[in-house]
């Protein structure tokens, strides 16, 4: 890893999200909830989601602890996902997975917006799980619905 790649991984936007996570906290019941963790490194995310009657994510919050990547990624996800339908969220998730794993081009690159800043994770395969942790918890919360 070069210092540039490391700086890419930890861009100021990402560090900003990790220091000041957006949508931090819990939602009152009734809502969807899931807990995700990476046993291998101890990162944890709890996610709370409210769906409206059109399957639109009307509200989302999270708490957690772990590395800058896992926490920033979850924070950025909540910002991006609020107001989207669950189908749109699933499409975003797949595109996001592609850019962090370097596994093919995203289908709708433009939609990703700020999330593309996490592309640097590609160079750090062992951090993919960190970047995906929030998204895994989101999927679990929605599928548990």
């Amino acid at each position, binding site marked *: 890893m*070069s210092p540039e790649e*490391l700086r890419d991984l930890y861009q100021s936007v990402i560090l900003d999200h990790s220091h000041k996570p957006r949508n931090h906290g819990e939602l009152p019941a009734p809502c969807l909830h899931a807990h995700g963790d990476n046993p291998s490194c*101890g990162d944890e995310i709890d996610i709370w989601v409210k769906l409206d009657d059109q399957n639109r994510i009307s509200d989302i919050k999270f708490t957690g602890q772990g*590395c*800058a990547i896992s926490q920033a990624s979850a924070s950025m996800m909540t910002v991006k996902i609020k107001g989207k339908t669950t189908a749109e969220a699933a499409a975003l998730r797949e595109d996001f997975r592609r850019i962090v794993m370097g596994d093919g081009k995203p289908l709708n690159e433009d939609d990703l917006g700020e999330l593309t800043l996490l592309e640097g994770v590609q160079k*750090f395969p062992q*951090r993919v799980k960190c970047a995906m942790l929030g998204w895994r918890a989101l999927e679990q919360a929605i599928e548990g619905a």
Partner: protein
Amino acid sequence: MDWHRLREDFPILHQEVNGHPLIYLDSAASSQKPRCVIDAITRYYERDNANVHRALHALSMRATDAFEAARRTVARFISAVTENEIIFTRGTTESVNLVAYAWCGAHLKPGDVILTTGMEHHSDLVPWQFAARSTGATLKHIPVLDDGSLDQEAFERLLTPQVKLLALVHISNSLGTINPVREMCAKARAVGAISFVDAAQSTGHIPVNVQEIGCDFLAFSGHKICAPTGIGVLYGRMAVLEKMPPWHGGGEMILNVTLDSCTYKAPPARFEAGTPDIAGAIGLASAIDYLEAIGVSHIEQHGLELTSHALEKLGCIEGLRILGPATGPRGSLVSFHCDFAHPHDIVEWANTHGIALRGGHHCTQPLMKRFKVPGSTRASFYLYNTPQEIDQLAEVLDSARKFFS
């Protein structure tokens, strides 16, 4: 001792990682291997390899002789009374499991207590949980004080006649605490309990003498003391081993077998079913010879110097809090928490600068909870490390602080 020249013995150290010379500070997880150990393995496979025991042809006699000589080397290294007290295992974890299954299974009953501590590695905790569950015994824990030492008053309180086994770590892999194993084993013996010492972090770092410690069992891993992966040791006092039933069944541990039953050999064979890691044992003996040629007390001194240097240097970094004992002797490792970044971010940052650290719970989740940290970052040292490397570490940690803050 010329510690810089000794680095020449370790081929792996002379490489660059991410454009920087490698600084390996993860020896508490696994140590590097000197050329002589690598050569001992090669030589074995190139000249003497064969299965051991029942040896009547030349190669198998040579392999058997080398394997049993390795057992004598280990016995001498930790001052066992006889080499028959040395059982070869895969490592500390298997050694603990052997005792947890074979000894506990034969000797514990409901009401009995296994006493352990709040700073055990999962490998010296989970097997006792299993043993407690299957025998009906109760597992109790000596609490850890804020300074990283064991609560000795609580120990005295907990040490009732119901305690049948005391299991404790010699040097904590997360805190660096050196426990007073000698005194604690003596107290355990006084109430009739046997003692098990997890010496994974002490063996090869400080002199370890089972007579002096006065324990009944002691375990360590080869891979942490310059030896190959796959080999470890369980020492057991003969009087205790003799009364312990076997655990793994199979070839070489039996005397006579019929289709429905069998009789067992005496220790250590009773506990070594199947083909052992012959090359591993030979590599372990070579590693011990290497460490002894340098002198374990010299290595201890070197470790103390590195550690106090690290405590001083890292102690100056703002927002970095050191876990474990602040003063007094300490294992050769420093575990710390940084308020500016998560351990994994620190480890990642260090790796980009060629430094190998470990971050996480270090297989001591209960201890991390005790200190209310999700995990820690750990720099651990061995004979091939230098103060200059620690200076580098301090610089890189300070740059991390600036970057992540």
